[in-house]
């Protein structure tokens, strides 16, 4: 069971790793958008890592969502907050997240984020990474989960690299986006790596 203190530890790890990756993510976003993604992600996790988390893991996830909301309101921040909020609703009232719940939580986040951002799978966005991870995690044994997730996220980047972006600011770049990794997918990979380090 993943309790609130494990969540807090995970957030610290992600905050540290995304801070290191901040420049990389900003420049990836700079090539296809406004160049703020590294800041959005690192600021968001720093704020979340600094928040006091209650024992109820649902409320803890809600706290994470709100922290994100507060400091970073670029698309990615709002989408992640939406994802955390969706997971929070499912876990409310529990004191720990069961590992077998995880694929479902990722899928719920994916669906909520699709509804919020009006994006589709295949548009080349973080949604595709979430979908790949949710699928890969089904039937994955507990101990292998994070490795499986990282592999799935990394593969998803490559699968979409040579397609044009159809969502967010990157959409405006059309064919110019072919050959470039979607910044949001890249950020998601770095988030999972940060989680792994903990």
């Amino acid at each position, binding site marked *: 069971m993943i309790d609130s203190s494990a969540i807090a530890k995970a957030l610290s790890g992600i905050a540290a790793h995304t801070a290191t990756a901040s420049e990389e993510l900003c420049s990836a976003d700079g090539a296809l958008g406004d160049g703020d993604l590294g800041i959005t992600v690192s600021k968001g996790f720093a704020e979340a890592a600094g928040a006091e988390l209650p024992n109820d893991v649902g409320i803890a996830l809600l706290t994470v969502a709100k922290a994100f909301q507060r400091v970073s309101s670029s698309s990615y921040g*709002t989408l992640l907050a939406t994802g955390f909020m969706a997971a929070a609703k499912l876990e409310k009232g529990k004191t720990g997240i069961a590992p077998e719940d995880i694929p479902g939580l990722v899928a719920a986040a994916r669906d909520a984020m699709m509804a919020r951002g009006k994006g589709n799978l295949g548009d080349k966005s973080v949604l595709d990474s979430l979908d790949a991870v949710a699928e890969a995690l089904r039937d994955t044994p507990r101990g292998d989960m994070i490795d499986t997730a990282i592999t799935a996220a990394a593969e998803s980047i490559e699968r979409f690299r040579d397609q044009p972006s159809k969502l967010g600011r990157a959409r405006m770049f059309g064919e110019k986006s072919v050959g470039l990794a979607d910044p949001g997918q890249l950020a998601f990979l770095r988030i999972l790596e940060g989680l792994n380090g903990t």
Partner: protein
Amino acid sequence: MKKILNDPADYVDEMLEGMVAAHPETYAQPVRRVIARAAGAKKGKVGIVTGGGSGHLPIFTGYVGTGLLDACAIGDVFASPSAEQMAEAIRLADGGAGVLRLYGNYGGDVMNFDMAGEMAEMEHDIRTTTVLLTDDVVSAPKEEAEKRRGVAGMVYAFKIAGAAAERGDDLDEVTRIAQKTADACRSIGMALTPCTIPQAGKPTFEIGETEMEMGMGIHGEPGIWRDAIKPADEIAEEMLDRLLADQPLAKGDRISILVNSLGATPAEELYILYRHARKKLDALGVEIVMPLVGRYATSMEMTGATITVIKLDEELESLLKAPADCAFWRV
């Protein structure tokens, strides 16, 4: 970075503080980064809120005022405000008759405003509606017009919807009129130099010493072509051609036109553009009503201009001409 500022992190907050201090009869900041009318919400009147990134004065906050907006949530330079701030703006704008969310179609803003609407309905039981500005003809083809981003057409939407709300129309009616205004607006931009986001410290894009970009967005979003700077008349001609291709105008049509500086381009050059636009529209037999020439929607110190044409009917025209008053514009 040729900017006048202190710590870049304080750019937005100090700017808002100065703005409210300079015009306390118009603006108040009851919550950090939420600007509302100094007099507060008017009981029984439909509220209109907007929001978006800083760096576009008078857009967005500047248009809070009588006959215009009621409240505005404002983010960092070129960044969306948070849903929480937007929900505050909705709450501050509410006079009990519901609130229209009227803003430009940018992904981040839309997601946050959707969230904010849910929050306001849940927490304060405020009924809200949404109208998105999608006036930039370059940002998506006509078939996907709903994906276009909103630019200077906002000025007309704020003015016309604001007048409808001020005269006492109900939420559905204000929403209908705002949507009708949004549907009647077409805009296009061109840029000659970038601006610098204070916290980034470097220009938003690079462009050659003798180059211009047609169709560029107000945050430096890519346009249609980049080439040697053309004569003003050719620039105006192409911009109008593109607007008219999207929304044809015929003899006898009545329009208003906004020739807007992105910041550094001086009024002198806007009038040179207007001169040609006017000739062209005159030749078509189109009647211009209340033309606007000036800095109505900027990107700080960017050099360039946008042109917006709104096709009017009697309803829109009379609301456009109704009195309005903020620190940047008085009708």
